[in-house]
């Protein structure tokens, strides 16, 4: 299931917010098959020849293009930031198992920081596959401060309702993203409506969302953020304890058994 190693041209590369960047790549092969929640493994131009690749989730895919949204956070992304429009980037993908492409209920998307990246592609996918009367996705998004909220305009442009929480109250409600989420869960229970949870972000958030899924008996789709080495399941560096079909817990590889796991399968 390993992806293609495609040499892609950088079409656009610009700030999403201070410290966050959008990179649009010409990637006809990868874009042809990529699904929401899958990731790509990028050889960063400008790093030494031995440098490992960096995994990025896909913000948008299709029409021969791939859009990544990343945070400038370390040596790799510092170097990637400098890649000029027009330069060539080696990209391996699409990789891993992503989110399902349909939803049996209200799609509740919960993102933290640049964790919104795969949720954007997911929202677009769900909307494209949804019946006309299906409920639209709602995005719950949190950050420490307003500056950590990314690409909300792009979600709204899709018709996604966005509910915001920030720790410092600089945008949306003051608190954590699970606060508005819990309000919605209570409302949905009172209405007797089904929903599914989709999340990507820091481990603490993932766990909190997974608990809401298992606690309500609804489906929860959890995208694990791990630094991957090979990206294809060859090296066993990015493991997560997962309950197997026989109930036995095993060390699953996030890159190839995930990065999206079912909430009830994760052995935290």
């Amino acid at each position: 299931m390993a992806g293609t190693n495609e040499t892609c041209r950088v079409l656009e590369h610009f700030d999403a917010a201070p410290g966050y960047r959008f990179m649009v790549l010409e990637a006809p092969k990868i874009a042809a098959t990529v699904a929401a929640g899958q990731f790509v493994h990028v050889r960063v131009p400008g790093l030494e020849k031995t440098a490992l690749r960096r995994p990025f989730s896909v913000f948008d895919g299709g029409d021969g293009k791939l859009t990544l949204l990343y945070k400038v956070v370390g040596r790799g992304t510092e170097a990637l930031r400098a890649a000029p429009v027009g330069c060539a980037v080696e990209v391996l993908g699409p990789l891993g198992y992503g989110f399902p492409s349909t939803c049996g209920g209200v799609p509740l998307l919960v993102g933290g920081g640049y964790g919104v990246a795969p949720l954007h592609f997911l929202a677009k996918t769900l909307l494209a596959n949804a019946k006309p009367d299906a409920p639209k996705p709602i995005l719950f998004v949190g950050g420490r401060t307003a500056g950590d909220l990314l690409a909300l305009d792009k979600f709204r442009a899709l018709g996604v309702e966005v509910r915001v929480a920030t720790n410092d109250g600089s945008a949306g409600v003051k608190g954590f993203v699970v606060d508005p989420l819990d309000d919605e869960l209570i409302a949905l229970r009172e209405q007797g409506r089904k929903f599914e949870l989709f999340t990507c972000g820091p481990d603490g958030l993932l766990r909190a969302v997974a608990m809401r899924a298992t606690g309500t008996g609804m489906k929860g789709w959890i995208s694990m953020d791990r630094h991957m080495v090979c990206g294809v399941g060859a090296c066993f560096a990015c493991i997560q304890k997962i309950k197997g079909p026989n109930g036995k817990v095993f060390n699953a590889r996030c890159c190839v058994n995930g990065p999206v796991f079912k909430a009830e399968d994760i052995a935290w």
Partner: protein
Amino acid sequence: MVDLSVNVGGLAMRTPVATASGTFGYGTEYAAATDYSKLGAVTVKGVRMEEWPGNPMPRHCEVFGGLVNAIGLQGPGAAAFAQYHVPHYADAVANPPPLIVNVWGGSIDEYAETAAVLSTPGAGSDKSVHPLVAAIEMNVSCPNVKAGGHTFGQDPKILFEVVKAVRAATKLPLFVKLAPNVPDLRPYVAACEEAGADALSLINTIPAMVIDVDTRKPVLGNATGGLSGRCVHPVAVKCVYDAHRFSKLPILAMGGVYDANDAIELMLAGASAVAVGTATFTDPNAAASVCDGIAAYCERNGFASVRELTGALAQ
């Protein structure tokens, strides 16, 4: 046309380039990005009798010029490997290169048992459990498992015993993968030779460690790990050079092979074939490029067969 075929201790390889254990899963993971026609063999992840969970996370840390890992030989166990992974490889890959199965254990008996299971039917048989299982590579030098690998490889006497036991359990071509961190390879190579090994694999990773100065904790869940990548290449060349000078055992060399020149250095030092490891993580097609580059080098320099490169240092 350069003849790229080599025979390493009874293992026939169509090219002198293999993948290295632990960097190529069970042979199928990189399938879509791999040109298998350029590979002479695929070495799979370490297998022991029982399923093994490996080490806690984090299991790797990038360093300048290389990678420190402490995966800890996670694996499905020999039976599951033989029943599931090997047929899956046979199905998924067209014209698949032969498999070298990396084997380890917590005891001499387990080493022998594992080798025997992969060589069934019948201990000591030269028929393997599957036609693609073509050789055994004994891992006696993994720095990342306390009970296993390392302890068997650091004392030549114990090394002799464990190789002898595996030799009795299988007639498959038997490789022994040695550690570079010894003062002198001679007694280790001699132990392998006397115990009946067919070939050497050189080198395993170098014991290493990285500490996070902010948390003041080791980065790896296992505290320490093994260093691989381009930076260990000059160490591998030295080990191959030494082993080739005092032993006739053929050598499969690995350690920092990123391009054809890296491979050719190892062959000139005495290797019969090379394995590409950590480089694959950066370039999934690294092994195939290495193969092409070796062929071009032979062409350019008038070598009709890649076999002429082995130990061919100019005087």
